[in-house]
């Protein structure tokens, strides 16, 4: 009887200790979340209806953003939206497929496999400040490309500061530096596919293209879906290297960078919040739609 009581007491103490431990461990993260996520996000909604000194101004900030789509001398939101979508489409339909193909090539053990992996991963570990410096000097008027042009008797024009070529230069930069991490992630996903699947497919005489499209892609689709959803979720926040290249000039403004300019450079915190709210209203259904469509396309495979 005494043992049972002792045992009961012991159990109760252990439970209490566990509860205390959980509370102690989670107190700081919960407070942190309340301050740096809940407060910030609630305030970003309130800011939309305020001026910069906290006075309520109704829908004035939203109206300002909507005029910037058509007639606003300070911001061309149409250009920013189009450029943001271009960067996103480039990421989804060019960089991501290239990363999958290259991951597959590495998975198949192409000669120099490790060397290429390290080389392509270089831009992921080096600050964009350096990578943009390297790129700008490489394509600059004193760089190797300009000198090669000069040797051929042609004149090279620095493409970043030309309205017609600036966006293309940034997209090339994106692809030059963009997919090192994705290759590693996709390759690790491919390594987890059971070898038996490939063996049975080889007995059926599968070709390399079919192996990639009919086996690899469907089996790594859950990971691809996650990356696509995360990419869609950050679509309007992504700034890319705009600050380091053009500061939004030469037709390279994006939504993310326009928000940065509003609150940091112009001190218009409320207008930045208004831009954010409008694109949050667009972004949420977009994420849910992407999840739905990804589920429809890929399906679930157990292995």
């Amino acid at each position, binding site marked *: 009887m005494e043992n049972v009581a002792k045992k009961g007491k012991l159990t109760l103490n252990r439970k209490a200790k566990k509860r205390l431990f959980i509370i102690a461990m989670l107190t700081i993260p919960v407070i942190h979340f309340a301050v740096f996520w809940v407060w910030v996000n609630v305030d970003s909604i309130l800011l939309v209806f305020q001026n910069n000194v906290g006075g309520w101004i109704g829908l004035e900030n939203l109206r300002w953003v909507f005029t910037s789509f058509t007639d606003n001398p300070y911001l061309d939101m149409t250009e920013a939206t189009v450029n943001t979508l271009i960067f996103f489409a480039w990421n989804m339909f060019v960089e991501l497929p290239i990363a999958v193909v290259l991951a597959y090539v590495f998975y198949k053990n192409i000669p120099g496999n490790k060397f290429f992996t390290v080389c392509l991963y270089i831009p992921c570990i080096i600050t964009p400040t350096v990578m943009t*410096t390297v790129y700008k000097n490489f394509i600059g008027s004193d760089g190797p490309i300009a000198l090669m042009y000069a040797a051929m008797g042609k004149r090279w024009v620095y493409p970043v500061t030309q309205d017609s070529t600036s966006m293309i230069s940034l997209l090339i930069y994106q692809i030059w530096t963009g997919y090192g991490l994705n290759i590693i992630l996709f390759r690790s996903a491919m390594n987890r596919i059971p070898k038996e699947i490939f063996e049975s497919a080889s007995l059926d005489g599968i070709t390399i293209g079919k192996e990639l499209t009919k086996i690899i892609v469907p089996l790594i689709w859950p990971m691809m879906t996650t990356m696509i959803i995360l990419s869609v979720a950050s679509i309007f926040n992504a700034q890319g290297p705009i600050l380091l290249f053009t500061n939004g000039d030469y037709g390279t403004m994006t939504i993310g960078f326009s928000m940065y300019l509003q609150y940091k450079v112009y001190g218009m915190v409320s207008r930045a919040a208004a831009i954010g709210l409008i694109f949050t209203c667009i972004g949420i259904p977009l994420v849910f739609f992407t999840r739905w469509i990804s589920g429809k396309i890929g399906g679930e495979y157990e292995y």
Partner: protein
Amino acid sequence: MSTENTNVYADGAKKKRLFSKKPKEKELIKKTPAFIAVFAVLFIILVLHSASLIYPFVWLFLNSLKTNFEYISNSSLLLPKSWLFKNYLEVFTVFEVRGTNFLMMFFNSIWWSVGNTVVGVFMGCVVSYVVARYDFKAKNIIYGVIMFTMMFPVYGAGAAAYKQLFTLGIYDSPLMIIKSAGGYGGFQFLMLYAFFKGLPKDYMEAAEIDGAGDFLIFIRIMMPLAIGPITALSVVSFVNCWNDYMTPIIALPSFPGLATGLYLYEQAMKNGMNYPMYFTGTIVTVIPVIIIFSCFQSVFLNNMSVGGLKG
């Protein structure tokens, strides 16, 4: 005797393999001419791409060893007339932006990267461990909230966050590090959660029988077990912080790190820049991350799979 050449059997005995090398895996797909052609084209593209990533750094390094006059007056493709390795010492004093010299920027990069990494990764372990290993009422809510914050896009919060820095009095202060103390960040949480979730219960139960408390189990047993993912995440966090140029521009103007310093130097000196000094600063900035990545490359690559995400 290398482990590669031995088989370890259940009884612990090591027996030498008949062949010293692992037999090659059977090629599953027949190498048709089309197969070889596709791989040859991709190989050439990879060679060119890799060269385009390596060559500019060689170019930067060679030009960092010149005088400014030599760089401006001669072709940048030529080798330096005299190899000025002293530029790599001078950069620490000559390279200066807004009253902060290169040495100070180096120091700023170190405290910002180390501080954020230690605080961020530790808090990541705390949250993911508790959510993965303990059953309590709010567990599913916390997990759901973390997933929600990852998938639910909220734009424009940067403006409110910027305003909040002034309200909390942490703008332009080293206290900015507390912003990384949440531990509920997406990728980090997923990776550690999957790791802790996958650990057998036996470890905890054995330690409890020996009288260890929950905190002791976490610190003395679970954290050492998670050293692989912790190291990988620490490398990622350190490199990200080292490379982060936006945070100091937005919130820490008096504490520019090397990444920010290079941008500010370029902006400030646009028309009268000492190019070789700038290139030297660029090379010095990348050396620490290259060293760290080289040292922890295998740990990093072995642990870099999106934890918990099947695929």
